[in-house]
C-alpha cells in the first residue's frame, strides 16, 4: 500500500533570507535512491512540511537541471511558514511531489521570452529563467520585468544582477511608488505600467506572468495589444491546496482541479474557465 500522503524526509542544506519576511530553502533527499530517481519539470510544485505544524504548497523554484537538491521559497504568513522560518541548516523537513503540470519549455523553444512577476511570484518564475539560461541557444531574447512593493521586498536580487549580465537578457526592476529608496536605480511604478512603457519587443514571444491577480489583470491587455496571442501567455495559479493529488476538493476553478490539471495555464485555457478565482 503506497501512502500517497507520506512525504520524503529532506535535509536542509541552506537557508537564505531575501527580505524581512521571505526565505528560500535548499533541501536534498535523505534517501539516496530516491534522490537519484527524482525528477521534475520547471513549473511543478511540491507540498512542504514542518512536522508538528503542517504542510504548505510551494513551487519548486530551482531549475530541473540541478540534480543535487531542490529549492523552495516562502513568505512568512501563517503557522506552517512561521515554523519553516525557524529551520536551520541540518534540520529535517518533509516534501511531497512533484505535482501538477509544468511550463511548456519545449514549446517555447525558438521564441523570445518575457517573464513578468510581482512580489513573491519571482520564485516560480526563477526556475524557468534558470532553465532557459541553461539552454540558452534554444531561446531568443529574454526580458525579465520584476516588481515589488518596496526595494526591501524584491527577492533573488543577487540572481537578478547575474541574469542582467547574460547575453540577450534584459532585467527591469521596479517598485511601487513610495517603495523606492534614495539610492534605488530601478524604475518606480506598477508592473503593468512599466511593461507598457519599456517598449519591449514582443514579436515571436511567449510570456509568463505570475503575481497578484490585480497585476495580472492589468498586464494582460498590454501583452495582447502588443500582439502576443492568448495561447502564448502563461500563468501559474496559486490556489490553496491540501492534498495536491486531486482529492481534498479546494483548489478547483470551476471544472478544473488546479493541483492536477494546473497550476500552469495559458490565457486561452483560462478564458474558458468561470470567474472562480
Amino acid at each position, binding site marked *: 500500500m503506497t*501512502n500517497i500522503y507520506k512525504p520524503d524526509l529532506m535535509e536542509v542544506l541552506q537557508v537564505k533570507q531575501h527580505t524581512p519576511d521571505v526565505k528560500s530553502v535548499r533541501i536534498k533527499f535523505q534517501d539516496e535512491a530516491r534522490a537519484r530517481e527524482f525528477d521534475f519539470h520547471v513549473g511543478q510544485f511540491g507540498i512542504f512540511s514542518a*512536522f*508538528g505544524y503542517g504542510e504548505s504548497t510551494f513551487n519548486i523554484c530551482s531549475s530541473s537541471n540541478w540534480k543535487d537538491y531542490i529549492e523552495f521559497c516562502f513568505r512568512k504568513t501563517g503557522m506552517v511558514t512561521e515554523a519553516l522560518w525557524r529551520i536551520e541548516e541540518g534540520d529535517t523537513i518533509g516534501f511531497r511531489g512533484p505535482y501538477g503540470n509544468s511550463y511548456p519549455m519545449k514549446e517555447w523553444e525558438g521564441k523570445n521570452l518575457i517573464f513578468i512577476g510581482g512580489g513573491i511570484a519571482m520564485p516560480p518564475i526563477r526556475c524557468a529563467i534558470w532553465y532557459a539560461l541553461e539552454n540558452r541557444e534554444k531561446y531568443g531574447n529574454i526580458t525579465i520585468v520584476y516588481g515589488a512593493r518596496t526595494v526591501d521586498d524584491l527577492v533573488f536580487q543577487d540572481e537578478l544582477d547575474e541574469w542582467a549580465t547574460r547575453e540577450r537578457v534584459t532585467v527591469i526592476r521596479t517598485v511601487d511608488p513610495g517603495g523606492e529608496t534614495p539610492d534605488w536605480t530601478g524604475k518606480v511604478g506598477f508592473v503593468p505600467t512599466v511593461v507598457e512603457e519599456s517598449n519591449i519587443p514582443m514579436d515571436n514571444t511567449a510570456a509568463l506572468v505570475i503575481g497578484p491577480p490585480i497585476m495580472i489583470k492589468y498586464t494582460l491587455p498590454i501583452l495582447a495589444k502588443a500582439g502576443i496571442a492568448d495561447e502564448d501567455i502563461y500563468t501559474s495559479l496559486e490556489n490553496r491546496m*491540501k492534498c495536491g493529488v486531486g*482529492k481534498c476538493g479546494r483548489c478547483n476553478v470551476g471544472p478544473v482541479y488546479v493541483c492536477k490539471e494546473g497550476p500552469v495555464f495559458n490565457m486561452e485555457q483560462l478564458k474558458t474557465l468561470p470567474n472562480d478565482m
Partner: protein
Amino acid sequence: MSEVISQQTLSQLVDQWISQGKRVAGPTRVKPDVLLYEFLTAADQLLLNGFIRPANTIKELIFPRTEKLYGYRLEGKQIELYDVEPPATEQIVVGARPCDAAAFPTLDYVFNWDYKDPFYRRLRDLTTIVTLACRDHDEHCFCTSVKLAPDDEGGSDAMLFDLGDGNYEVRCLTDKGKALFAGATQSSDKVGKAGPGPEPSIDLDKVKQFLDTNFESPQWQSLSLRCVGCGACAYTCPTCHCFDIVDEGNAAGGARVRNWDACQFSMFTMHASGHNPRSDKSQRQRQRIMHKFQIYPDKFGEILCTGCGNCTRNCPVSLGVKPVLEAIQEIATTETIETK
C-alpha cells in the same frame, strides 16, 4: 423464488458477527430524538422498523471524520515517520439506507483517479454493506430525482426487504454479501418490494442546463441568503468528501491527520495573501451545487448526490440541495418563459 431470513435469525447473526470481533454498525437511537449510525455492541440496538434516516451517514466508516495518515517522532534534528495502520478489522453495516450505500461507487472515482487513496481503499475493502430497501420516505427524500430508487443496489453487498411478517428477503449482490449470509437464509416464494419512493420533483437536465450557463447569475445570492455557513450539509452528506490535512502533536511527536472539511467555510479557499476566491457565501453555495451537479458529473460521469435529503434535514435554516435545485428549476422555467 427468494432467500429469506427471520428477524430473529438476523439478530442472532448480528450478535454472532459482533462476538467474532467484527465491527458491526447500524442505525440506532442514541437519544430519544437522535438516530445515528453507530457501532453496535448487541443486535437489539439495531433499528430496522419504520422510517429510519440517521442524521449521519455511513461515509464515516470508510472515510472517517478524522484519520491518521502517518505518525512522526522528533528527536533533536532527527525525524522518523511511521505508518499508523489500525487493525484490519472487518466492518459490517446492517440496515444502511440505499442512498448512503450508493455514495461509494460515486466516491470511488475521486479517491482512485490517478493517485489511489490507500486509506479509503483499505476501509472500502474491509467493509460489507447490507442495506434495507426503503418502504417509507419523508418530505426531504429525493432519491428518485437523482436517478436512484428506494431499492437502488449501488454500493450494497446485500439488500434486505422487509416482508412485514417478521422476515426479510435477502438479496445478495456481491461475493461479500453472499459470504455474509451463507447458510443463514431459507428459500421462499415471498418476494420483497420497496416503497414507491418520493415523487420525482427535479428535472436534472434543466438544472444542468442552468448550471452550465449561469455561473455569474445574481440568483446565487438569493439562493444562499439564509445560509449560516455551518457546514452541517457537507458533514451529513454521504458524498461530500473534502478534507483538510493538519498536524496533531507536539515537539516530541504526533501524527499528520486528515479531517473532514467543507466548502461552506470561508477559510476553505483563503490564500496566504488574504485573497479568497470564494469570499462570499453565495460563491460557496454555488461551488457546492456546481460540484455535485456539474463538475463531478462532467469529470466522472456521476452526480455527486444520492438524494438522501440529509443536507436539508440537518440544516438549521432548511436549505440544502433539494430546495436549492427546486428553486433553480423554478428560476430556469420562469426565465425560459420570459425569454419566450
